[in-house]
């Protein structure tokens, strides 16, 4: 029953973020090291180990579950059994502070 995110998907998102940052860093380095004779230091990309990815998946799953649980509380208090955007709106500030 325990559904979770795919570690490969999370890994792909991380790699996207890391390569974006890498390009920024490389861009800045290029400006400073222009005189060098082709000695551009290629900053090795960050990697993540398998258990770190699993824990990240768990963290994101907790985020989704928590969002739903808090919004559901509000909806229940109103006596409605469908979670609407207004319910999510009300729990959003505290949710984002907690995560």
């Amino acid at each position, binding site marked *: *029953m325990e*559904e*979770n*995110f*795919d570690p490969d*998907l*999370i890994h*792909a*998102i*991380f790699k*996207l*973020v*890391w*390569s*974006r*940052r890498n*390009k*920024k860093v490389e*861009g800045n380095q290029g400006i400073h090291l222009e005189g060098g004779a082709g000695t551009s230091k290629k900053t*090795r990309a*960050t*990697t*993540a*180990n398998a*258990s*770190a990815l*699993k*824990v*990240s998946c*768990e*963290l*994101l*799953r*907790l*985020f*989704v*579950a928590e*969002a*739903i*649980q808090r*919004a*559901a509380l509000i*909806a*229940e208090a109103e006596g409605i*059994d*469908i*979670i*609407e*955007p207004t*319910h*999510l709106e009300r729990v959003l500030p505290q949710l*984002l*502070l*907690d*995560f």
Partner: protein
Amino acid sequence: METLGDDGIGIGSGGESDKERQEETEEEAALLRDRLLLSVISIASSHAKTLGMTISEPVVACIADLAFKQAEQMGRDVELFAQHAGRKSVNMEDVILSAHRNEHLMGLLRDFAQELKGKEPCTERKRTKKALKNENKVQEPIEMLD
């Protein structure tokens, strides 16, 4: 009036190749967003079921968008933590640290991590005869003290 709002994508130093790369990353990001949306839909629907509620579509889409942003932020945080520790590779502790804003959450993640650690030795290493003998030896002194 300027604000500190992030534009999301790194500002390139101009030129066609940079624009092409930006378009590629945008396409990749869109693909990942869709995949994440699918995962969120399945997790959200099953969780709502256990609560006996239904979720409206816009809420799921919103949560998926938030989850994507959280994942991006998480990626940046753990990269910084790993680099700060002088490592190129992100490990479990970096991820757990990134949840430091909420003690309860951090505790949950530590438990999860402990479980993972506990499972790994069993699946990776075969229990040797020596290890079993040591376990028996550890038990004996306790009995003698009694």
